[in-house]
């Protein structure tokens, strides 16, 4: 019988944690969410030396405060699930800041091993670390690694198993703070001795002095007197130090981290800046940075669309080639047509339209992210994003939205607070995705000229700013601002990037496909039952009277819910021509496109909204957008008729 053990990976963001995770687990991994949370949970299994090892990749965090979901989740996991050993991955090139988390892990009294990663980067920066000394000071095994080259991973795993088997004597050093603080910690810990809690008493004492809300709540249920005592002691500290209690504890802990770091590392600043340094200076340059960014983004979209078109063509040729075969197999009855038109076409559409564009898009995005460039873009765009009430990080999902709104909505998780997440998600669904671009260029661009298509984009950006600003004012809560690390540039680790792309693609398929298929089935059913006409007639007051469009466009609006580019295809089918100029006047084209651009997120995006914000949030965003699009369409129709009427 194999023994089953659990190893958790913990560490700051950008330290190579996911690279180590991928090395350890290969393809035996599962990416999901933490129960009830929108934080990603990556798990994998591995067999080693007769053990079956479950590996949990905890979210990348800088501390165990409880201001972010990630930090709360990681802390709770460690104390309640009690993994057999925690591998704390730390960046050797930023030792001091990484040790800050290490110290907190030690205070949680969990068995641990340290992976001193990115030794190569440290060396490049002229940082030399005495590993033995670090090990002695902390009283914890330290294994130097260079994860992207696979160096040290085996030794790391061996060491982790040794700790589990208690072959090495691990006695973590006790962390002592300054006299005034230490005295009070001891006093509090004494008072907490009989408290029933998964946390060690000393940790509770420190956290109570710090004013950790979650711990305070937990303890006050058991013994409110201790919390009162902690508050009193904390107030004494505040008087001595002149800072608030949370700052005092954090500073004290950083003092310890700093002393250890200074003790074990020798820094000789290299004479000339490294390639990465140089690249950083250029890509964040106040003038050069912007053209480089625009060029990079442009290349990214160009590559995505070229690759996507190619893939899409190959796939659709192949899959639609199966149509005669399937139809001959199925026959032409009503049920068969329902199966073909509803289910199979839905699948084919997903495969040929969504995947070819999303896969390359993800791949390029993750390459950029892994290299460190995405954070530079956020730095450059922060100010502009502030104009719509968001900060630099929100530019990333927004940009993703131009490819597809589904991953963009999922990407809004990087925002720190719920308020920001809702705001970013809302704004993102207004971005014209590739499918909407098909309508903009295929209808307005082709028949009215490219300048009209581009002005629609400008109108769209303006509206995004206005609506974003409005939502910013309406939403309760306090806006956050940019606090972001810009990790050193490095060559992306291809395997990790490929895996990330693959698992993201799976996630997309899981969210989008069921709804795309169910949606096409419903619409096909409605079509076969002759309901489409009825619905179109029902909608005609809006479509004909208010928007000035042909009555049949009601059907297009329904199909658009499924997939926006279908609107154009349906338009062609309905009129029996692709020469839209012969059936629609310019005003109708513009109004049609504007409504298509805003009126509702497609069904897959709605699914993503439900996943991220819940039913209520998804419903509100969808309703607001439908009303807004119809209002805007009608107003535009009237203005344009007036203008065109005058010029003609």
């Amino acid at each position: 019988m194999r023994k089953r053990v659990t190893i958790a990976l913990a560490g700051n963001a950008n330290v190579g944690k996911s690279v180590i995770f991928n090395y350890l687990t290969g393809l035996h991994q599962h990416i999901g969410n933490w129960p009830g949370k929108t934080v990603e949970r990556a798990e994998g299994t591995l067999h080693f030396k007769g053990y079956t090892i479950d590996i949990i990749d905890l979210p990348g965090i800088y501390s165990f405060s409880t201001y972010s979901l990630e930090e709360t989740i990681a802390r709770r996991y460690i104390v309640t699930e009690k993994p057999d050993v925690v591998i704390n991955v730390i960046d050797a090139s930023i030792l001091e800041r990484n040790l800050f988390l290490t110290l907190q892990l030690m205070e949680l009294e969990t068995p641990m091993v340290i992976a001193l990663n990115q030794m190569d980067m440290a060396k490049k920066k002229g940082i030399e670390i005495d590993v033995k000394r670090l090990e002695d000071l902390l009283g914890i095994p330290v294994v130097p690694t260079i994860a992207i080259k696979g160096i040290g991973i085996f030794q790391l795993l061996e060491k982790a198993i040794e700790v589990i088997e208690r072959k090495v004597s691990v006695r973590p050093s006790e962390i002592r703070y300054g006299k005034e603080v230490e005295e009070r910690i001891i006093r509090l810990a004494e008072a907490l001795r009989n408290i029933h809690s998964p946390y060690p008493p000393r940790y509770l004492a420190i956290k109570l002095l710090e004013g950790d809300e979650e711990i305070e709540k937990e303890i006050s249920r058991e013994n409110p007197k201790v919390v009162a005592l902690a508050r009193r002691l904390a107030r004494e500290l505040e008087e001595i130090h002149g800072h608030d209690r949370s700052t005092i504890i954090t500073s004290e802990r950083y003092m310890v981290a700093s002393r250890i770091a200074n003790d074990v590392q020798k820094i000789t600043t290299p004479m000339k800046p490294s390639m990465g340094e140089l690249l950083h200076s250029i890509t964040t340059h106040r003038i050069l940075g912007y053209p480089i960014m625009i060029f990079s983004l442009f290349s990214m979209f160009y590559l995505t669309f070229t690759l996507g078109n190619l893939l899409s063509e190959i796939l659709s040729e192949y899959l639609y080639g199966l149509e005669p075969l399937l139809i001959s197999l199925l026959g032409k009855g009503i049920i068969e047509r329902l199966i073909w038109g509803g289910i199979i076409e839905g699948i084919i559409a997903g495969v040929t339209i969504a995947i070819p564009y999303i896969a390359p898009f993800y791949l390029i995005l993750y390459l950029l992210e892994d290299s460190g460039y995405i954070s530079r873009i956020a730095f450059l765009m922060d100010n502009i994003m502030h104009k719509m009430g968001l900060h630099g990080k929100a530019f990333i999902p927004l940009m993703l939205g131009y490819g597809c709104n589904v991953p963009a909505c999922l990407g809004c998780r990087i925002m720190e607070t719920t308020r920001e997440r809702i705001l970013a998600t809302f704004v993102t669904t207004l971005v014209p995705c590739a499918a909407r671009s098909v309508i903009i260029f295929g209808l307005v661009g082709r028949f009215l000229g490219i300048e009209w298509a581009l002005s629609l984009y400008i109108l769209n950006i303006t509206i995004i700013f206005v609506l974003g600003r409005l939502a910013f004012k309406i939403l309760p809560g306090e806006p956050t601002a940019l606090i972001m690390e810009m990790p050193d540039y490095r060559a992306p680790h291809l395997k990790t990037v490929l895996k990330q792309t693959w698992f993201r693609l799976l996630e997309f398929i899981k969210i989008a496909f069921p709804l795309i298929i169910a949606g096409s089935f419903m619409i096909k059913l409605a079509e076969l039952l002759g309901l489409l006409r009825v619905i179109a007639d029902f909608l005609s007051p809006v479509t004909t009277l208010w928007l000035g469009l042909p009555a049949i466009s009601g059907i297009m609006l329904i199909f658009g819910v499924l997939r926006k580019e279908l609107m154009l295809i349906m338009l062609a089918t309905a009129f029996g021509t692709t020469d839209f100029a012969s059936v629609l006047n310019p005003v109708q084209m513009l109004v049609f496109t504007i409504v298509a651009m805003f009126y509702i997120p497609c069904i897959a995006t709605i699914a993503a909204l439900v996943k991220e914000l819940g039913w209520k949030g998804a419903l509100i965003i969808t309703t607001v957008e439908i009303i807004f699009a119809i209002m805007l369409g009608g107003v535009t129709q009237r203005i344009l008729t007036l203008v065109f009427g005058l010029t003609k």
Partner: protein
Amino acid sequence: MTGIQGYPMTRRNDPTMKRMSERLGNYEIPLTALKDGEAGIIMSISGGGYGRRWGFEKRLADLGLTPGTRIIVVKAAPFHGPIEVLVRGSRLALGRGISDRILVKKEERCGRG
């Protein structure tokens, strides 16, 4: 340090601010008053009422911005954008509003520049 309002927002290029930082090098000034390449020692971070809900002071402290820490301003993004700083060996981007709330004492320029 109580009250809903923080201290007045300052601009990096505000001439009075600049003059003050030159003349009174040892006074506490917001981080935004430091020029590119200048270093300072963090004295305090306080938003008054600002940022309590999402804990911006705590977030900064967790990243190593604690009182007494040396902070180097590398550069500011254009159009009143965020500021790039070096703290405890890591490179961070901080929004302008946040940087205004970080009070530092400017470090005297040493010989090597």
